[in-house]
């Protein structure tokens, strides 16, 4: 009864308002937030200055917009790569590298040669950076003119006098950006209300359950342990792939460094420029699960590679070309972890076949990069290749 009176009373209050004043209230409230976002311009697209950043991991879809801020924020180490290293946090980096006090992870979805060249070119000239780590993924097998859809190059070529720039700013509104803008206004630092709650990329959280049958919340509390087995359908898909592609898994791709131009046209000029500025460079290959080289040959696989055949040999060629391209440049090292059996043969290291889900593995990789204990050179590459090839060829699923 009381509830009814309250309801009637609250509705009777509505009599004092007209239809339009009530109906359009959300429009005016959200409109004010929208226009505030436009005026604040939190990413410095047109009239805003590059924002101040904090030392926490930024959301995946935001990081690629922060290049200007990274240049002005006195970071001393930058990690750049794709989805395979998005989960590495500044805290992990800081813990693994002794001389580093302010690292930043600038990884975004599927970096491609054109955007990587642009970013590395700018980072190599950035003051205060002492070390740059580049995660070299399969996407760098792509042609030189390919640009990632996740890197908003046009943000960096905006100007106050170009209507296209205004249009881009007007279109870029979403609640996450609005939250960032309001926090920037309030605290002077670009931050997001949900920035600290999740150290793992959103897409990994979403797909974890699909691939492993484990809920994100259970996984997060277990500090990386997948207590339940994967759904059997995924396991059987992997086993089928191993049976079916055993004979062709390491077939020659018939390509050389000409077909992998990113090594000589992107990484080498960058490393030379960085060396001139006294910046230490580490290129490394995020290790994929051994079963990936079988699974990716299957048409059912979700991987988007320019060439769908001889994938193992294509990636091996990429590795060889990168090692050759960076050979002899001072302060540059190339590391690989593919022959670490405990990482790559265990499918539970990954939530699929390439994205590592255990923090301990990331920490191990970072420590070994710092120690430069897994370095590939022109001299030891053949031995690495031979071991790697044998491991992949003789791989037996243990699940």
């Amino acid at each position, binding site marked *: 009864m009381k509830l009814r009176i309250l309801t009637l009373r609250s*509705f009777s209050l*509505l*009599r004092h*308002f*007209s*239809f*339009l*004043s*009530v*109906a*359009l*209230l*959300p*429009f005016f409230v*959200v*409109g004010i937030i*929208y*226009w505030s976002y436009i005026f604040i311009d939190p990413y410095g697209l047109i009239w805003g200055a590059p924002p101040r950043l904090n030392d926490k991991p930024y959301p995946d879809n935001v990081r690629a917009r922060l290049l200007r801020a990274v240049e002005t924020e006195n970071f001393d180490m930058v990690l750049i790569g794709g989805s395979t290293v998005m989960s590495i946090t500044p805290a992990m980096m800081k813990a693994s590298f002794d001389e580093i006090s302010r690292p930043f992870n600038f990884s975004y979805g599927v970096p491609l040669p054109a955007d990587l060249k642009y970013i590395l070119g700018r980072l190599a000239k950035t003051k205060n950076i002492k070390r740059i780590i580049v995660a070299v993924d399969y996407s760098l097998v792509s042609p030189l003119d390919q640009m990632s*859809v996740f890197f908003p190059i*046009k943000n960096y070529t905006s100007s106050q006098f170009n209507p*296209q720039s205004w*249009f881009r700013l*007007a*279109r870029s*509104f*979403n*609640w*996450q*950006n609005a939250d960032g803008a309001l926090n920037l206004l309030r605290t002077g630092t670009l931050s997001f209300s949900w920035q600290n709650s999740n150290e793992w990329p959103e897409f990994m959280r979403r797909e974890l*359950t*699909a*691939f492993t*049958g484990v809920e994100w919340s259970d996984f997060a509390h277990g500090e990386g342990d997948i207590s339940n087995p994967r*759904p*059997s*359908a*995924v396991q059987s*898909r992997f086993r089928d792939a191993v049976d079916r592609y055993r004979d062709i898994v390491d077939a020659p791709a018939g390509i050389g460094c000409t077909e992998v131009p990113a090594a000589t046209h992107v990484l080498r000029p960058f490393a030379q420029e960085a060396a001139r500025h006294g910046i230490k460079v580490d290129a490394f290959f995020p290790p994929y699960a051994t079963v990936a080289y079988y699974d990716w040959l299957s*048409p*059912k696989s*979700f991987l988007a590679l320019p060439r769908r055949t001889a994938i193992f040999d294509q990636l091996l060629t990429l590795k060889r070309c990168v090692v050759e391209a960076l050979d002899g440049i001072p302060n540059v090292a190339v590391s690989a972890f593919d022959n670490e059996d405990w990482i790559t043969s265990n499918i539970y290291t990954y939530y699929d076949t390439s994205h590592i889900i255990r923090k301990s593995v990331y920490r191990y990789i970072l420590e070994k990069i710092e120690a430069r204990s897994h370095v590939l050179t022109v001299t030891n590459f053949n031995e690495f290749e031979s071991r790697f090839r044998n491991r992949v060829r003789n791989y037996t699923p243990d699940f």
Partner: protein
Amino acid sequence: MLFVESHFIFIFLPIVIALFYLAGTLSGKYAALTVICLSSVVFYFPNSIAGDNPNISHLVLATSLLLASVAINFAIACYLTDEGTKSHTTARKAVFTIGMTLNFGALALFKYTNEFLKLAEGTNYAPLIAIGIPAGISFYTFHQAVVLSDCYNRKSETLEVFKRSASDDVISRLKAYLRSAISYGAFILLFPQLVIGPISYLAEIAPQYLKRSFGKLRRIDIAIGTTLFAIGFFKKVVIADYLGGIADSGFSTAAAGGTMAAARAWQAALAYYGQLYFDFSGYSDMAVGIARLFGLRFPNNFDSPLRAVGIADFYQRWHMTLTRVIAKFLFTPLSLWGTRFAADRVLSGWKRKTVALWIPLWLNFFVIALWHGATSTFFLFGLVHGSWYILETEIKGAKLWRRYKRATSERQRQIFGQFIATIGLILTFALFRSSDLPSFARLLTSMIGRGEDGVALPISSLDWAVIAASFAIVWLLPNAYELLGRYRPNIKTFTNVTMTPWWFRFEWRPTPCWGLFVAVLLAIAFVKLGTKIPFLYGQF
């Protein structure tokens, strides 16, 4: 620029509305129409080619194509409506034919050339038209073709738009041309209907321009427009986009060569059926609502089609403005021609029906299918719907049906019809959504429980709840036009029987309580601002 994008809602629309009413109040209706013309070009330009990063030169080309098309059609319409050319039958016919050929030629060139090349040469085809498909080309082609046809037939409402000055004074004559050009341009370019319809007739919209109240702010127009906009916005961003996520995962698994568990396949098919309705009807509601913000009433495009009792009923409720335009300009002339042909040759029985009804119906559905794109799935979709329509027409004309009608109640027939229609439509729209025929076959295989659960995606109970809630809205609640029926929110395209249960037949009024309803819809929809999921029909 999409209706659901923040810059449309908070920058473009308020500015255009303000300028429109300012111009209308200070300088009259032609100034207000000029605001519509110019703002529509601004609206069209950035989205004139689909895609996130279209080439600027392609945008210029697509916008130029639209403007050139408007100019050429206007010139042809002026010729066809000129009193002086009334007696030049052959010349008028020739000019009309040229106009139609140009319109449909451009549509074929820009929309279908690449598609046919792809069909003929497989995935390695070299695109002949590199700029992509100009947005809205199907819609503005149909709009202009209808105008030319009305001009050729000298329809009185259309002639009014192209009325010449009786004076010999050059300035007066130029002014008359300018007024015609502005009225015609404002109709074709009118941004609420430019990209995804509805397909209205100039004869429906132009008389509204001529009203004395046009260009003058009326509170009731804003109230109705806001309500329709809010309903459409909610349908699109809250319901359709959620259902789209469910549908996409199932259809993309089938497209990638996989199969899935039966429940998941049915979930995907059901979700797509709902998504397409909420997406497209949501767009139409928003378009009708935006038009009403300018004091204009558009024809109705949807009338609870998911409650249809058969395929014929479905097409009287689904994308009604396309159905009526194809019926008017294709089916009716073809059927008349077939009837005459059958009479001349004294054909009877199935031979007469084939010529007078079946072939025109098949062609009708073939064109509807082709309108969506030249792919094998659309062809099969058109073929199935055409055959279904013929079968249903024949069954309803048979003695057996009359006996069945006597033996059953209206309600029983309605439920039975809805059951058959719903199953058939879910399956055929799954075909419509599939990327190719093998993908559709995989989905069907999964639906009958013969697929292996490839990636074992979990089946969420929330997804089922949303699907159930969406279909409850479809089956129980009044549609936007029933809700606002008292205020004649639109022009009736077809008259259909309402199937809303009487206890849910709410009636909207511009009261604070209904204002609260609209505010809640808007507030929930605003949560999804910035998601940028395009309207499904934008691709057609």
